[in-house]
């Protein structure tokens, strides 16, 4: 595994004009003599261009002899760095947690670690490897894996649970009864603990971008009919008896939706990546993968045996440097050319909320003759005017991307994944892919749900429902992000992406925010180390088209309140002072 490229963090980069040719170059940054000056490269200021521009401005003056005011070019993405004081406090929190954990582990053995009837056997779990799980994660475990009792739409019904032993076990009870009975009576009656309650909460944690997670509606009816006709599962692989008419129709519809020649679908999204990459690349190939790629991509690339080099997240200069070195120097010792060079990126990165700079990658790919694998797990259906993903968002040609991959879990309210591309590629995968050969085929009602929802998005059912949902999602996402920035919290990512990570840094604060929001009937997801980098603990909001403006306003009100009590206003960027109007920036899309 190659080393992490994030070794030098410079806030400003010095991009000379030649190197900047690989970066985004719109018409407004072209100087008169045709040179290309890049003002912002991936959200980081380019000092050289500012000096050049400023000197040019000094030359031109209006009639009064005053140089014209420079209009600031605002980048759509921001990744503000953590304030140093907060970073030190976060470390302090971790020191304390670790110290207490080691102390606890040394002197007290928990119930779960005492194994019965296993004398003479090796212990089941290594003490060191279960340290983090038992002494850090366990303390805030009630924030994750919450049992739900309804479909995860805009509102979700959560089952209340309480823990009497600090996270080791849970019981179905009401938090209010628990605190009253221990404070007042000091004696617990068994009947009190089992009258559990359910809470209806606003759902800001589910991947439901177009709002297709519904228990009734045309999709659910069609899926129920599919069960009647074809049964629940095919119980066989695609190469044997698993192919059924719905899978064939789904593949055709997916290819039409994306604008490619052909597509192949699989029952599981993670497996689509991890089991197909080994049939696409092999030892002797070079793969350039983004720093923040998902675990499924990393696993698939490791299984394939290809050489992996990592470039800095969404950084085109880093990618271009790696491409140049790969083409010039070839394989490490033999200096032979690489068999193929594959660039692997995601459309919307689910942990950062950033959107890949697709036009630049396509330009680089064509220049250096590499292949491109685009994982649109979160962007398909969620971005673009017609919901066709990040290609639609930028207006790029689907034929430029060699391998389009995506999942049906997020925007279509279903499960599974697809790979789309040229017919030759898909035929190769149908024969050689591990998933096509060994994994069981997609189940009929799942396939039908996707077909129905895809037809709604494309507008083929005759209504404007699909278009309405796409517009609603785009408006919701932009409104929510602008309001959050106005509150003054640090959020990552692109202004248009529906994934909104709100940075809270300290580990206990993640737990505190999730629990506080829960008491105010908002269900959210927090993520901390080791799933994210140590200094980037966050709460991740997923905006849906089924959220109304009133629901978002209520959520924002609560967030504004707790950002004072829990201390979340870390941002030092200037804040927009006026009123954010819902849907006011449609034309700037």
């Amino acid at each position: 595994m190659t080393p992490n490229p994030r070794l030098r963090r410079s806030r400003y980069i010095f991009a000379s004009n030649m190197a900047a040719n690989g970066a985004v170059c719109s018409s407004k940054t072209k100087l008169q003599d045709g040179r290309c000056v890049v003002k912002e490269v991936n959200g980081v200021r380019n000092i050289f261009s500012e000096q050049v521009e400023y000197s040019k401005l000094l030359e031109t003056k209006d009639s009064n002899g005053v140089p014209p005011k420079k209009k600031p070019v605002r980048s759509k993405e921001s990744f503000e760095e953590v304030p140093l004081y907060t970073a030190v406090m976060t470390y302090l929190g971790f020191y304390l947690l670790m110290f207490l954990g080691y102390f606890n582990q040394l002197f007290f053995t928990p119930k779960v670690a005492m194994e019965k009837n296993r004398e003479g056997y090796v212990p089941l779990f290594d003490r060191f490897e279960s340290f983090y799980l038992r002494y850090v994660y366990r303390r805030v475990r009630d924030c994750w894996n919450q049992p739900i009792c309804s479909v995860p739409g805009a509102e979700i019904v959560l089952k209340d649970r309480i823990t009497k032993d600090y996270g080791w076990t849970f019981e179905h009870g009401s938090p209010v009864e628990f605190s009253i009975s221990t404070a007042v009576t000091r004696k617990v009656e068994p009947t009190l603990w089992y009258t559990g309650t359910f809470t209806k909460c606003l759902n800001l944690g589910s991947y439901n971008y177009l709002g297709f997670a519904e228990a009734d509606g045309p999709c659910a009816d069609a899926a129920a009919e599919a069960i009647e006709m074809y049964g629940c599962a095919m119980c066989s692989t695609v190469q044997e008896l698993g192919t059924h008419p719905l899978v064939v129709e789904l593949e055709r519809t997916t290819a039409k939706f994306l604008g490619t020649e052909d597509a192949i679908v699989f029952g599981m999204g993670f497996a689509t990546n991890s089991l197909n990459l080994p049939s696409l690349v092999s030892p002797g190939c070079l793969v350039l993968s983004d720093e923040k790629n998902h675990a499924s991509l990393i696993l698939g690339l490791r299984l394939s045996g290809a050489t992996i080099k990592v470039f800095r997240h969404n950084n085109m200069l880093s990618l271009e440097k790696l491409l140049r070195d790969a083409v010039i120097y070839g394989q490490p010792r033999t200096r032979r050319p690489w068999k193929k060079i594959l660039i692997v990126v995601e459309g919307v990165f689910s942990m950062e909320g950033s959107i890949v700079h697709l036009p630049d990658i396509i330009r680089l790919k064509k220049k250096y003759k590499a292949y491109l694998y685009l994982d649109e797990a979160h962007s398909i259906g969620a971005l673009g005017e017609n919901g066709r993903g990040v290609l639609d968002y930028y207006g790029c040609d689907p034929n430029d991307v060699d391998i389009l991959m995506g999942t049906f879990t997020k925007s279509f309210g279903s499960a599974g994944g697809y790979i789309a591309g040229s017919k030759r590629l898909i035929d190769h995968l149908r024969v050689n892919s591990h998933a096509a050969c060994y994994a069981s085929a997609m189940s009929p009602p799942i396939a039908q749900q996707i077909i129905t929802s895809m037809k709604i998005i494309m507008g083929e059912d005759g209504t404007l429902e699909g278009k309405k949902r796409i517009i609603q999602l785009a408006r919701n996402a932009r409104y929510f992000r602008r309001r959050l920035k106005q509150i003054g919290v640090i959020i990552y990512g692109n202004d248009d992406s529906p994934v909104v990570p709100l940075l809270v840094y300290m580990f206990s604060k993640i737990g505190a925010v999730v629990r506080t929001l829960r008491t105010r009937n908002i269900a959210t997801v927090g993520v901390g180390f080791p799933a994210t980098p140590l200094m980037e603990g966050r709460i991740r909001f997923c905006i849906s088209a089924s959220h109304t403006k009133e629901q978002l306003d209520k959520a924002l009100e609560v967030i504004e309140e707790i950002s004072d009590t829990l201390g979340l206003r870390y941002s030092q960027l200037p804040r927009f002072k006026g009123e954010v109007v819902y849907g006011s920036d449609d034309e700037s899309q």
Partner: protein
Amino acid sequence: MLVGGHGESNPNTTWLQSRGLWISYILGVLTLHLILLSVPILSVPLAWTLTNLIHNACHFVFLHVLKGAPWIPQDQGDCRILTHWEQIDYGQQFTATRKFLTVVPIILFLLTSFYTRYATGHFIVNFVSMVLVVLPKLPQFHRVRLFGINKY
């Protein structure tokens, strides 16, 4: 709890690069030193020597003795035979983190020698402790296990 699901298969390799680590580390050593200085029995040279020894002992245990990571690994167990030092930055040598962690025990040793006025007893103890901590950090000692200690 999924470990390193976005980017790295083993977060142990990169968490030392996080912002604010150098300051926090130095503050930690300083806090330890101030606690020792405030114990009335210990003289100043003894407090310095104890700081050096305790720091080096913790440093050695956490970086060069404990192997693997405190979570179930997502990289199919590749990290289980490697100490934390060997995991840093996936084995790449002379990165900023490694240089920092090599330099801190040396600077601490120099300060300790100064404040103990180069007394022989203190010097020997501090020197041995420093060598024990700095030697495993040399690239020649990457994945070397002397006398089969700590091999599996």
